[in-house]
């Protein structure tokens, strides 16, 4: 299986009384809480952490896109990915991803991702999320009723722009482009692997199956809450006659490793409570854009349990735990010794049948030192216990196909 290291890049200095004094971490987050001097340090440390994870042997490093959000400081994940492409060698660069509707024209995504694929020598995974209502409908004022129609048109345009060798005209419903001719083109042919981060919507599952894309369930609420959604996904794959290749799926999980469980419980309490308490303090007014959820999803949400979990991952936060004991108990964060964590993650990967496990190992206000400790301990003593899982039976057809080493170049050393 593949173990990937995911960074949200949270702002780490939200005040203790953030929940009491501020309305929301997202959309109307108070800009007076943002110190650019602090952000200078954070961005550089966070990029160090991603590079460090790649050096330690994680198979991929992941970034994503959020707007007006204090727990996600990457309005442009492509900027970060471009830098990571220069400073890493083998790891996949997983951009998880670009919210397609926010790029006008969407050929911008085709261009920038092709650049990253060229710079990295073919290590890009192209993630195409619809984007949350908070990001798309509120922070970027996109029409929720048109969001999915625009998303699908943007997707079709980008895929054709990567593959059609000739300039073409796009007479779309939302985009009219006389000359589409993306230059540069991606290294990977016919195009970089496409992964779709999604909630629990049945339309998304069917679409991933039809186009042979990876479906990634990026919930902050861990494996216990994710079980129903992943079961729904696999039931649908079976119904559609698709194989049970675990590499069809990705799943996000928070993890904290230490020498002993006691030590882990002591070390990860504060950052976990910071994340689930402050970072997920979201005004639900910004999670309810009319038309964002299809009518089929609205029906499913009421009629099935899949739904519940999916609705919660949207970030609305209803009934969500914020105390550490409950956070651990409900599986939001897996903590323990290396062997305990390996055993739990093996169960998670097997039960959920997930080949791409995306691990959040810096979360909340976790500092650089603890992040490094968590990452190293995992890479040295957990990863080796897990990486061969599934490989006897399944091939990862959705992993980047990088250039052979002999064809790649490395950046010059920094001097002075």
């Amino acid at each position, binding site marked *: 299986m593949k173990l990937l290291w995911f960074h949200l890049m949270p702002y780490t200095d939200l005040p203790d009384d953030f929940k009491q004094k501020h309305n929301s971490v997202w959309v109307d987050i108070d800009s007076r809480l943002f110190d650019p001097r602090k952000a200078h340090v954070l961005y550089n440390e966070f990029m160090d952490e991603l590079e460090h994870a790649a050096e330690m042997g994680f198979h991929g490093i992941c970034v994503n896109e959020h707007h007006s959000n204090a727990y996600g400081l990457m309005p442009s994940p492509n900027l970060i990915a471009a830098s990571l492409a220069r400073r890493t060698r083998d790891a996949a660069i997983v951009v998880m991803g670009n919210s397609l509707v926010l790029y006008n024209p969407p050929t911008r995504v085709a261009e920038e991702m092709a650049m990253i694929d060229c710079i990295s020598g073919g290590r890009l995974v192209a993630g195409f999320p619809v984007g949350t209502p908070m990001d798309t*409908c*509120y922070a970027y*004022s996109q*029409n*929720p*009723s*048109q969001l999915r*129609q625009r998303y699908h048109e943007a997707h079709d345009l980008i895929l054709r722009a990567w593959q059609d060798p000739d300039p073409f005209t796009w007479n779309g*419903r*939302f985009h009219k482009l006389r000359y589409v001719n993306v230059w540069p083109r991606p290294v990977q042919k016919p195009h970089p692997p496409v992964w779709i981060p999604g909630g629990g919507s049945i339309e998304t599952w069917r679409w991933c199956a039809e186009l042979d894309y990876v479906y990634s369930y990026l919930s902050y609420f861990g494996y216990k809450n994710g079980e129903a959604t992943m079961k729904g996904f696999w039931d649908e794959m079976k119904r559609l006659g698709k194989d049970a290749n675990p590499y069809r799926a990705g799943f996000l999980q928070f993890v904290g490793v230490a020498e002993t469980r006691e030590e882990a419980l002591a070390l990860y309490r504060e950052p976990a409570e910071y994340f689930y308490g402050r970072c997920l303090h979201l*005004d*639900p*007014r*910004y999670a*309810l*854009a*009319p*038309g964002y959820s299809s*009518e089929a999803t*609205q*029906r499913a949400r*009421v*009629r099935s349990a899949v739904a519940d979990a999916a609705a919660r991952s949207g970030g609305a936060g209803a009934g969500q735990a914020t105390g550490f004991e409950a956070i651990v108990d409900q599986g939001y964060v897996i903590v323990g010794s290396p062997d305990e964590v390996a055993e739990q993650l093996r169960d998670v990967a097997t039960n959920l049948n997930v080949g791409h496990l995306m691990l959040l190992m810096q979360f909340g206000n976790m500092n650089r030192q603890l992040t490094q400790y968590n990452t190293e301990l995992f890479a040295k003593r957990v990863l080796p216990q897990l990486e061969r899982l599934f490989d006897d039976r399944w091939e990862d057809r959705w992993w980047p196909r990088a250039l052979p080493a002999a064809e790649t170049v490395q950046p010059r050393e920094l001097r002075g």
Partner: protein
Amino acid sequence: MSEPSERHVQVNGRRCRVWEKGEGEPLGFLGGLRGLPRWPRFLDRLAERRRVIAPSLPGYPGATGFEELDDLADWVTASLDLLETSGLDGADLIGASVGGTLAAEVAAFSRASVRRLVLIAPFGLFDEREPAKDLWATRPDELPELLSTRPAELAAYLAAPAGEDALEWSILLARASEAAARLLWPLGELGLRKRLHRIQAPTLVVWGSEDRLLPPSYAKKFASALGGWVEVREIADAGHLAEIDQPDAVAAAILGFFT
């Protein structure tokens, strides 16, 4: 209160419900935020004197097909098709809230389509100095208070009738909400200010004195930009859905304007 008669017309290849009641000169009504989930007292009052024809705009209760409408031109075209096939071409027309903005657009783009116009708290303008509240950043439990001075009565008006599937009813209302968002997201402003001078039909602008969504001061902004004879009537103790809060007073103001 007897039920209206019901028929259907085709707009854009999709069925749209048309409710009708009363005798006399036809009087059109384009509904507001949730359309007409049921026949309201307000239209009964009007039907005592006029033949009231209330066609459902795409996406509102009784009609689908709004997913095909992408921009203002599409919505105005659909509205014109709907009015003409319902027998309202050149008739008096009332538009409330979202229906109000489309009634105004129709009257601006196609002067002959509307004889006399009534706008009840229409969307269409946005003044940064007196911004409209964000309808779409409102929790469901806050909505009745935002829209109405009689939130309990509004909740009863919107509640699923006996025998209706509660989930499907909630989806019906959510669809209407989406249709409004599809036209008006994010500000409820589509450049109508630049077209208001073209509306030369005599116009009555009605606004609830307690409209907490669109400030009542917007009534004057509309009135001063309209191109023909204009009257403004503020309705006491009424919110954004003035015709639901004060059906008798709003109906009386409209019938008075027409005589």
